[in-house]
C-alpha cells in the first residue's frame, strides 16, 4: 500500500477552512500595494478537508518504522526510547508560548532552565562552559572549530589544518572545511584505533585541532587517549570531541578529563530528544576555560538568582543561529536529565555497553568482527564473510526490514568494508536483542543457502527495494534540461493551478 501525494488527492471542490474575517476597516492589499509587487496567481497548494488531511498523514505515519514500534539499532545514532514526559514538558505554555524577544524579566524560568542544563552538561562532559545555540551535532562541530580558529587567531597563530581520523563521521571533515580549514586524514591501525605513528606524522605547527570521537565510530575506546591528548597539545593544537558517542560512558569517564578542549553533544542522541525523522536536534558545545571567551553570543549568566543574556562578549565568534538555539529540545533534554539524575545516567551508559557487548556476542559467529572486543556502546561487524555468496551488507539490511527491525547503519565507518554498525542502546530488553540476533542468524543462513532471495528484499514493505541509480538518472535528466519530469518535487501537469 502506498499513499497518493496530497497534491494528487487535492479536490477543487474543497472549501478553505473557516478562518477569522477581517473585522476591521483596513484596506485590501490590492488597494495599497502596487500591482507588480503582488502575486499573479495563487500558489498551487493542495485543497483537502481536515479529515482528508488527517487520514493522509495517518497513512503516511503507518509507512514509517520508528523506535516507538521497532528496534532501531542504527549505529552512531543512539536511537533510544524518547520518554513521553519530555514532550509534555516542551509543550507547556510557559515554554512553548514564549516570544524570544520578551524582556528578560519575563523569561526567568526559561533562562534558568538553560543555565541549569548548561551546568548539568558541564558536569557530564567535564568542561567549563557550554553554549546551547547550535542546532545539531554538525552545527556544533563547526561552532567549536570557529572557536578554535578564533583562539589560535587571538594568539596570532595561523593554523590552517584540522586532522580527522579516517573512521570519522562525514560531518567532521565537512565542518572543518566549512570553517576554513584544510583537512588531513589520520589512519586507523589494525586494532581499529587511531595510529599514533600516523598522527605524529600529520601533526605540525599548522595543526589547529584533532577531531576525535571516543569511543570511536568502531565502538572502541581509544586506549591511548591520554597520549594522544599530550601529543596534540604539545604541538599547540586543540583536541576536539565529537560527542555522538557520549552514551558510552556517562558517569564512567569524561571527555574533559581525557584532555578534550571542546566537546559537542547531540541532545537528540544521548539525551533522548526525539529525532523527528531527521531533526530538529540540538548540538550544544562545551569548552574548557581557554575557549570560553570565544563562545557564541549571547551566553546565559546568573547572578544572585537573577538571569541575564550576556551579549557583551568582545572575543565571541558571534552568532551561529538566531535566538538561543532549539529551546524546545533543551527543555526535553533537561527534563530527561532531571528524571534520570546522575545515578540514572550512569546506569544508562553501563546498560548501553552491556547491551552492545551482549548482542555482539550473540552474532559474532555469524558476521565478521574485524576488531577485538570488548566494545563500548556499539560495535561494527562486517558482511565480508557473505561476499562469497554474493551477499552484501545492504542485502542484510533490507532483509532485516522484512523482519520488522530497522537496519543498522551500513557502509559506515568507511574503514570497514561492508560495515554493519549496531547500536542497541540501554532501553532495549534482552528479549529484543535475542530476537534481533535470531534474525541475523536466519539471514546469514539464507545467505548461504538461498542468496538470490536476499537481493529481492524487502518484500513485505509498502515498496520493494527502490532503484536509486535509476532515480539519480532521472534527476540528472531533469537538472540537465533533458526531461520535464520534476522528480524532486510534485508539479501540476498543466499550469500549476490545482
Amino acid at each position, binding site marked *: 500500500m502506498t499513499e497518493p501525494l496530497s497534491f494528487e488527492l487535492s479536490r477543487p471542490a474543497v472549501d478553505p477552512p473557516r478562518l477569522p474575517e477581517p473585522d476591521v476597516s483596513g484596506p485590501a492589499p490590492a488597494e495599497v500595494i502596487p500591482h507588480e509587487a503582488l502575486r499573479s496567481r495563487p500558489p498551487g497548494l493542495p485543497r483537502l478537508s481536515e479529515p482528508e488531511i488527517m487520514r493522509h498523514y495517518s497513512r503516511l505515519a503507518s509507512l514509517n518504522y520508528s523506535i516507538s514500534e521497532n528496534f532501531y539499532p542504527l549505529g552512531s545514532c543512539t536511537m533510544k526510547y524518547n520518554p513521553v514526559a519530555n514532550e509534555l514538558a516542551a509543550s507547556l505554555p510557559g515554554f512553548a508560548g514564549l516570544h524570544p524577544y520578551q524582556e528578560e524579566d519575563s523569561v526567568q524560568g526559561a533562562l534558568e532552565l538553560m543555565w541549569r542544563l548548561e551546568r548539568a552538561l558541564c558536569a557530564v562532559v567535564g568542561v567549563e562552559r557550554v553554549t546551547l545555540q547550535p542546532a545539531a551535532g554538525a552545527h556544533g562541530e563547526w561552532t567549536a572549530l570557529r572557536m578554535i580558529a578564533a583562539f589560535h587567531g587571538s594568539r596570532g597563530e595561523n593554523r590552517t589544518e584540522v586532522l580527522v581520523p579516517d573512521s570519522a563521521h562525514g560531518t567532521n571533515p565537512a565542518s572543518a572545511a566549512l570553517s576554513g580549514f584544510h583537512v588531513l586524514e589520520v589512519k586507523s591501525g589494525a586494532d581499529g584505533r587511531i595510529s599514533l605513528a600516523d598522527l605524529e606524522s600529520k601533526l605540525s605547527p599548522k595543526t589547529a585541532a584533532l577531531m576525535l570521537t571516543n569511543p570511536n565510530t568502531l565502538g572502541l575506546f581509544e586506549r591511548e587517549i591520554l597520549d594522544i591528548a599530550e601529543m596534540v597539545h604539545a604541538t599547540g593544537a586543540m583536541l576536539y570531541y565529537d560527542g555522538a558517542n557520549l552514551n558510552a560512558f556517562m558517569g564512567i569517564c569524561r571527555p574533559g578529563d581525557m584532555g578534550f578542549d571542546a566537546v559537542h553533544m547531540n541532545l537528540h542522541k544521548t539525551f533522548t530528544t526525539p529525532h523527528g525523522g531527521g531533526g530538529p536536534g540540538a548540538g550544544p558545545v562545551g569548552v574548557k576555560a581557554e575557549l570560553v571567551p570565544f563562545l557564541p553570543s549571547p551566553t546565559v549568566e546568573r547572578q544572585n538568582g537573577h538571569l541575564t543574556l550576556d551579549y557583551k562578549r568582545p572575543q565571541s565568534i558571534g552568532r551561529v543561529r538566531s535566538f538561543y538555539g532549539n529551546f524546545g529540545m533543551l527543555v526535553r533534554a533537561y527534563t530527561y536529565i532531571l528524571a534520570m539524575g*546522575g545515578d540514572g545516567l550512569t546506569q544508562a551508559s553501563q546498560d548501553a555497553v552491556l547491551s552492545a557487548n551482549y548482542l555482539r556476542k550473540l552474532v559474532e559467529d555469524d558476521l565478521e568482527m574485524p576488531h577485538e572486543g570488548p566494545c563500548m556502546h556499539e560495535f561494527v561487524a562486517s558482511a565480508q564473510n557473505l561476499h562469497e555468496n554474493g551477499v552484501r551488507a545492504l542485502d542484510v539490511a533490507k532483509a532485516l526490514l522484512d523482519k520488522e527491525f530497522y537496519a543498522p547503519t551500513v557502509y559506515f565507518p568507511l574503514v570497514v568494508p561492508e560495515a554493519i554498525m549496531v547500536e542497541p542502546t540501554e532501553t532495549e530488553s534482552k528479549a529484543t536483542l535475542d530476537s534481533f540476533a535470531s534474525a541475523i542468524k536466519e539471514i546469514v543462513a539464507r545467505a548461504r543457502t538461498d542468496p538470490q532471495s536476499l537481493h529481492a528484499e524487502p518484500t513485505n514493505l509498502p515498496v520493494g527495494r527502490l532503484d536509486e541509480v535509476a532515480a539519480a538518472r532521472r534527476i540528472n535528466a531533469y537538472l540537465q534540461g533533458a526531461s520535464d519530469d520534476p522528480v524532486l518535487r510534485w508539479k501540476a501537469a498543466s499550469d500549476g493551478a490545482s
Partner: protein
Amino acid sequence: MLEKIGVESIDDLLVDIPQSLRLDGLQLPNGLSELETMAQVAVLASRNKVYPDRLTFRGGGIYRRFIPAAVAAVTSKPEFYTAYTPYQAEASQGTLQAIFEYQSLIAELTGLDVSNASLYDGATAVAEAAMMAFVHTGRNEVIVSGYLHPEYVQVLRAFGEGRGIKVRKGGEPNKKTAAVIFQQPDFLGLLVDARALTASAHAAGALAIACVDPISLALLAPPGEYDADIAVGEGQQLGLAPSFGGPHVGFIACKKELVRKLPGRLVGIAHDAQGRRGFVLALAAREQHIRREKATSNICTNHSLCALGAAVYLTYMGPYGLRQVAEVSFRRAHALAERLKSLPGWEMAFPERQFVNEFPMRVPKAPAVLRKLSRKGILGGLEVGRWFRELKGVVTFTCTEVNDARALEELVEALSA
C-alpha cells in the same frame, strides 16, 4: 547477559578506559520520579510570563499565528517523531513522502524549481544561500541590501568568516559580488523593490537571494516571479509555536541550475522493481557522508519534523486559506497603523513605504510605553533601535489573524490611558 558475554562485571567491559579516567558517578543529584520531575519543570515554566496570542504585537522574525490543532496532531505521532533520518527508504516512506510534499509546497510557494528538505532556521538559511552563491560564482563578497534581520546578518558573518566570504552592508553589486541578499518584507516590515534588486544583482553577474516571509507569499510576488535565484526564510509562521525562538525551520528553494549546490537533504522520486513509486534521499553525492570535506554543507540532522509541521499547515490552509490569513493580517495591521499614528507624538517611521502586516513607528518614550503595556498583559512592539542606531525610538508592530478587532482596541486604549 554478563555470563553470556563471558565476563563477571560491567567493569570487565570497560578495561580499555585508563583507570585514571574512571569516575565514581556524576556530580548531579539522583533521579526523580516523573511526578517530581514534571513538578520541577512546571515551576520553571511558571516563572515565565506568557502573553495571550491576541495581545501580542511583537514580531521581529517570530510571530503568533493561529496554529490548527491538526499540526500537532500529526507531528506528535510517534511514527514521525521517533524515526531517524530516512536512511532505509523502504521503511521510511512516511517521512520521505512528507518531506517530498514539503519540498513541493515550498517550491509552489516561492515559485522556484526545487526546495531542500529543511535547514535549521532562517538565519542559517541565509548563510547557506550565501555559500551557494560563493561556490557558484567563485566570488567572495555578498551584499546585504537594506534591513535584513540583524541576527541573520550576524550568523551570515560568522559563517562567512569561516569560508572567507566578506559581508558588505548596502552598496552596488560589482564583479566581486557573489550575491545580493535582501529581505521582503524587510526586518521592519517594509516592502523593498525586489524586482529592481534582483535585476541589479543579475546585471553584475551576481545571484539574487530573497529572504521571504512565507505567509506574505500568498499576497506578494514570489521570488520565482521576479527571477530571484534563491529564496530562503524562516518557517516558524507555518504552524510552529514561538517556543522562545526554536526549534523552527529554515527553508531554501532555488532554480534548477543551482540544485547541485543545495545544502542538506533532498528527497526525490524512485521506483521499485515492480514499478511502484517511492521516495528516496536524492543527490547524496553533495553530502558530507559521501563527499566529506568537499560537501556542499556539513548538515546531517536537519529540521524534518518542523518541515512536516509546515507541510501540514500549508495543506490545511490551501491556497485560499493562506490568502485569507495573509489578507486578514494585512488589513488589521493597516487598521492598527491608522489608529496608532493618530496617537500624540506617534508617527510612521517610513510613511512613504508600503508594508504587509508589520510596520515601524516612531514612539515617544518607547521603553516606558512598552513597560506600561506589559503591565497590562500586552506584549507591545519591538524596539529595533537595539540593533540599529539610526532607529532609536522606532518600534515595529505586528498584526496577524490572532489579533482580533477587540485586541486592537485594547492596545489603543492601553496606550491612550
